[in-house]
């Protein structure tokens, strides 16, 4: 059919993972070149088929179609493959297998402020960022005033960007991006920036764009935003499409995904099993000032392990890292006999996390060999302090931490 503007056919993307560096040192390549002299000029590193390296399929056989004018939300948990999908469609990275066909001019917005440079003024950055995002010079000139007005930064437009507050930088960056007018727009997470008022303004702008008949693919962790903008959606999990349907159905399905099944095993060599958080129930009753105590239950396989290390990361519901620790940095490692059930007690002293749902990622390795990588483990629910009781107070508060602070006026 001719009104189909995006068609993806079995798109797949494989990434290598593990302790290995993301880029090569020439020394390794030279060593390898001794075995196969012509390989050095075939830099096929990330997708290389040799089975020595652990890999994951960030995206596996994803097929879907998007019609002209459709506003499609891509929903899924952390690591479901949403960003990878958008990156492939935006042509930032290439698929390992499969293909996609795109009809029409496409613009992508994977980050706010792409190409901004601190030394340049606001005006210069508008031109630079606009050009990098795909606008012509004439087009930027024509829209310049509109962009500056939208960003509310008329006064500072000839000041170097390094003197802007981060909020002002974001506003300007989004304003440039919002005036990109391709037929197909790919957007990732960009609404998660700026203050509440500005987020609303951005959301309004997005809806306007959608009403003009443009096709939009929108990735957001914020279900409210997705529902406000999108007509239909795709639910991704573990790199696969679970469903393509209208957005309310997708959101319902997403919310119905059992929290525990959310634990996503990205690496599992069968040498160690994660059996859950044994004190999970009490972790629903914590408030920001409490210590967080996780009892992680494991069982080892038939092989004893001699130098096990474990990394933890705690993510909030905006999917930001709030705590990240590596036992290698702490110098902590331990032995595990074969077929042994054991617990790791992980205590974070008074982290003062803002109320909300948190997920845990664990990464266990033995002598540097990855054994187990599980993310999206439903970890805890932090409640508002009794004193702060009214949930509306948090509306528009985007802080990840709620430290104890005092505020007073002096000399007033």
């Amino acid at each position, binding site marked *: 059919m001719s009104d189909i503007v995006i068609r993806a056919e079995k798109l797949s993307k494989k990434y290598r993972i593990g302790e290995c560096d993301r880029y090569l040192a*020439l020394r390794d390549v030279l060593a390898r070149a001794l075995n196969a002299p012509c390989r050095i000029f075939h830099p096929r590193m990330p997708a290389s088929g040799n089975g020595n390296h652990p890999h994951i399929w960030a995206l596996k056989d994803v097929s879907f179609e998007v019609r002209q004018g459709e506003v499609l939300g891509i929903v899924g948990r952390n690591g479901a493959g949403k960003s990878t999908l958008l990156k492939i469609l935006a042509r930032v990275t290439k698929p390992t297998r499969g*293909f996609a066909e795109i009809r029409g001019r496409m613009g992508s917005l994977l980050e706010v402020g792409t190409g901004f440079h601190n030394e340049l003024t606001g005006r210069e950055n508008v031109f630079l960022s606009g050009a*990098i995002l795909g*606008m012509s010079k004439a087009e930027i000139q024509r829209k310049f005033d509109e962009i500056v007005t939208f960003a509310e930064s008329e006064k500072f437009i000839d000041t170097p960007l390094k003197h802007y507050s981060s909020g002002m930088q974001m506003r300007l960056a989004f304003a440039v991006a919002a005036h990109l007018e391709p037929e197909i727009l790919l957007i990732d997470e960009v609404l998660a920036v700026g203050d509440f008022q500005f987020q609303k303004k951005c959301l309004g702008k997005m809806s306007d764009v959608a009403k003009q008949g443009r096709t939009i693919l929108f990735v957001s962790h914020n279900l409210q935003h997705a529902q406000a903008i999108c007509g239909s959606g795709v639910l991704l999990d573990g790199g696969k499409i679970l469903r393509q349907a209208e957005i309310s159905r997708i959101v319902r399905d997403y919310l119905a995904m059992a929290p525990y099944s959310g634990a996503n095993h990205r690496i599992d060599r069968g040498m160690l099993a994660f059996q859950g958080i044994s004190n999970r129930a009490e972790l629903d009753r914590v408030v920001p000032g409490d210590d967080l105590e996780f009892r992680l239950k494991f069982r080892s396989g038939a092989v004893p392990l001699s130098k096990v290390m474990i990394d933890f990361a705690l993510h909030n519901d905006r999917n930001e890292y709030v705590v990240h620790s590596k036992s290698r940095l702490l110098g902590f490692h331990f032995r595990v006999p074969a077929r042994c059930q054991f617990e790791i007690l992980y205590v974070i002293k008074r982290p003062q996390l803002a109320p909300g749902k948190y997920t845990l990622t664990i990464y266990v390795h033995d002598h540097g060999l990855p054994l187990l990588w599980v993310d999206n483990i439903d970890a805890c629910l932090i409640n508002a302090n009794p004193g702060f009781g009214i949930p509306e107070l948090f509306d528009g508060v985007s802080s990840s931490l709620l430290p104890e602070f005092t505020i007073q006026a002096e000399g007033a």
Partner: protein
Amino acid sequence: MNLEPQAIGITPAVLRIAPPGGWSDLSLGELWHARELVYFFVWRDIKVRYKQTAIGAAWAVFQPLLTMAVFTLFFGRLAKMPSDGLPYPLFYYCALLPWMYFAASLQNATNVIVEQQRVITKVFFPRLVLPLSAVTSPLLDFAISFLFLVLIMVYYGVRPSLSLLLLPLFLALAILTALGVGLWLSALNAIYRDIRYVVPFLVQFWMFASPVAYPSSLVPERWRWLYGLNPMAGVIEGFRWALTSHGNPPSGLLAASTLAVLLLVASGTLYFQKMEGIVADVV
């Protein structure tokens, strides 16, 4: 709805996104549509550099001038190197102009992919724009130091002849050489970070393999063609000859150089294109 063409957005009726495959990924059409972006990257390079340095454009003159003074003193006055009958300062300055452009371009091109990794991992544009702009922005310094050359020529009373008309040809050859080598270096450095440590040595060795500090007439006649495979030999001899009409037009040298440059640019483009398919996953 706004449907006017955009700098990069122009795509064939149906754009196909597929796994990296062979040499066919090269799209010169897309590169042509992204030409404004080359301008913007060059413009940014120049702006940022002049904002960050205290004396800005004066560096463009100091660098070749100081090198010229050192060469004149050591290679000229002390080592008594022949100079094709030209005054030493002029002899060296003529060669340093294209050489400094070439050295700066290589340095720029080597780092350009790594420096722009944030942009590369977030937005698509033909990646060839990056090495292209890396070898374009040093042209400004070249132009500024060229003005100084005019002063030196007036001072020594050297009057250019019709051969001056061929200067753009030699400049084009210098740009193509820088582009060809730059393509290789930027692609290699994106994948093997060791390259950036190799480049300063490469530049130094290459200078001694080029007639910067000595005339190519020192090279025995029967080896001259081999010497000419270094395209910068043809470029530098060409610059001296075109500017001052001293020495001989480097015809044989030039033929070998042109051939070498074309090979460099073609192979560099292909290798760069191959790297482009994976660069966002590697940097």
